[in-house]
């Protein structure tokens, strides 16, 4: 049973991991708490449903269409909502501090509600989906794992590896990291902030749709399903704000295993309580202890530099 829990947990966590890396990336680079990703997760899933069930498109084409449209909607959310609120359009930084900081978050919640409501309007509240592809079953260490689940984990893993490679090895990835570090610095070296944001919001919108379609194909879904997933991602980003995206993904996998364990041993309600409680208590513990740790490290580095500077000055005086 342990292997079953482990495998199913990894599969569940792999889906959440996609949202975690997308959410974390937007927060890190753009500084927006992109809660609307939960809406794109649902939108992608229902677009797939519409394309495959209502228009009869093959699975791959329907999936691709859902991903493309979600990517475009992701970019539009940034262009039409976040950028306008933060004053990126026209004369920059003219917005008040309160609006610039809280505005995108509140607007993001609004966009999430709009996207979920649009889906509800067209498809109603009845659970739909759950028709997973029958690609066979594998035997792994005595536990059964469907090829579909393996495919989901592979897609998730490939996404995190591709994003990590993009960030560390490409020009636009460097630019995204630089933008996250210092928007002013990015501006002085000639990085076009809006171009990088377009890439980011398109990629994260697409990732949310991939996760949404995978979830819909795995089990029945109702509008508004994205809020839980995006909340997990938000908590993980708050717990590890400076982590690499691989760490967010791994944390999602661990959370998935924990959730699945609680669901198997008790029920899904208990699993939700366990997952949220673990994340919230970790956040509280980390907030209490980690700043002291960081301060100690900073002090140590500063002392080392001061010592070096003193030695250097003494050497110069001696000369």
């Amino acid at each position, binding site marked *: 049973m342990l292997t079953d829990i482990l495998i199913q947990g990894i599969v569940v966590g792999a889906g959440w991991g996609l949202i975690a890396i997308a959410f974390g990336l937007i927060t890190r680079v753009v500084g927006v708490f992109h809660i609307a990703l939960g809406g794109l997760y649902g939108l992608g899933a229902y677009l797939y449903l519409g394309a495959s069930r209502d228009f009869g498109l093959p699975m791959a084409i329907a999936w691709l269409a859902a991903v493309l449209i979600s990517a475009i909607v992701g970019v539009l959310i940034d262009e039409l909502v976040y950028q306008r609120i933060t004053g990126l359009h026209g004369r920059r930084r003219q917005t008040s501090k309160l609006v610039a900081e809280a505005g995108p978050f509140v607007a993001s919640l609004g966009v999430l509600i709009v996207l979920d409501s649009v889906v509800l309007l067209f498809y109603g509240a009845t659970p739909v989906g759950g028709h997973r592809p029958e690609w066979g079953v594998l035997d792994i260490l005595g536990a059964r794992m469907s090829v579909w689940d393996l495919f989901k984990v592979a897609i998730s893993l490939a996404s995190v590896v591709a994003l990590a490679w993009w960030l560390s090895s490409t020009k636009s990835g460097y630019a995204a990291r630089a933008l996250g570090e*210092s928007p002013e610095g990015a501006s002085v*070296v*000639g990085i076009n902030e809006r171009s990088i944001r377009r890439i980011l919001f398109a990629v994260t919108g697409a990732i949310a749709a991939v996760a949404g379609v995978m979830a819909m194909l795995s089990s029945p879904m109702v509008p508004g399903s994205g809020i839980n997933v995006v909340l997990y991602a938000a908590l993980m980003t708050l717990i590890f704000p400076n982590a690499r995206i691989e760490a967010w993904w791994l944390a999602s996998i661990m959370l998935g295993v924990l959730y699945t364990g609680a669901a198997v041993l008790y029920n899904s309600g208990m699993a939700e309580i366990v997952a949220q409680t673990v994340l919230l208590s970790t956040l509280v513990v980390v907030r209490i202890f980690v700043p002291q740790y960081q301060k100690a490290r900073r002090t140590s580095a500063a002392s080392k530099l001061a010592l070096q500077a003193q030695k250097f000055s003494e050497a110069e005086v001696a000369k």
Partner: protein
Amino acid sequence: MPVSSAELLTVRNLSVGYSRREDVLHDISLSINEGECVGILGHNGAGKTTLVRAIAGHIPPREGEIRLDGQSLRTVSSPKRVSRGIVLVPQGRALFAKMSIEENVKLGAYRKSGQQATAAWEEQVAELPWFADRRRELVGLLSGGQQQLVANARGIASQPKLLMVDEPSVGLSGLAVSELSQRLLRMRDGGQTTILVEQNLGLALAVCDRFLVLREGKLVGNYTKDELPMDGLWSLF
């Protein structure tokens, strides 16, 4: 390298303001020739930083015109001005603290190709060999003086036609200012056209050929080094 008579930057009747009510710069006109190092002097709030930020395209002018090589920059965005050759090393440096020295310098050549970025890095290593030994060190852990040298290197990495350095000596020790001064002098001797915004008169006098004096957003003086009245220098401000 001698100063050329070719005009590189022309600013005509420039007025800039942050709010709708009041301008920070009023009717500024100036020109800078190729190879010149021009110091911009003035008290706090005189509009020095606003002037270089407007030239870099970070603040849209309310009135007036900025031309580089005779071409108007009115519709040219800030990132595209970097491609055209206008680079600002801002006050406070705006480095990428959690990125390495090498990454920072290479990002200076962001608008160039990958090969040019590598060449720019190698050029900076030749100039400051300690870069090579500490290439992977995070910039946030360097001293203020070292950070300023990285910021300058990042600015030069894009091989700008016009480099604008804003208050580079703020917060630096005497030794660091001396090292910075040497670096700026080598850049000037190499023919780099530079605008230096500086309150440290010693540094500005050591490096620049010409001085523009700003007071309350207006250009009130334009002096060569020989014309500068050393006795009553502060009264100019």
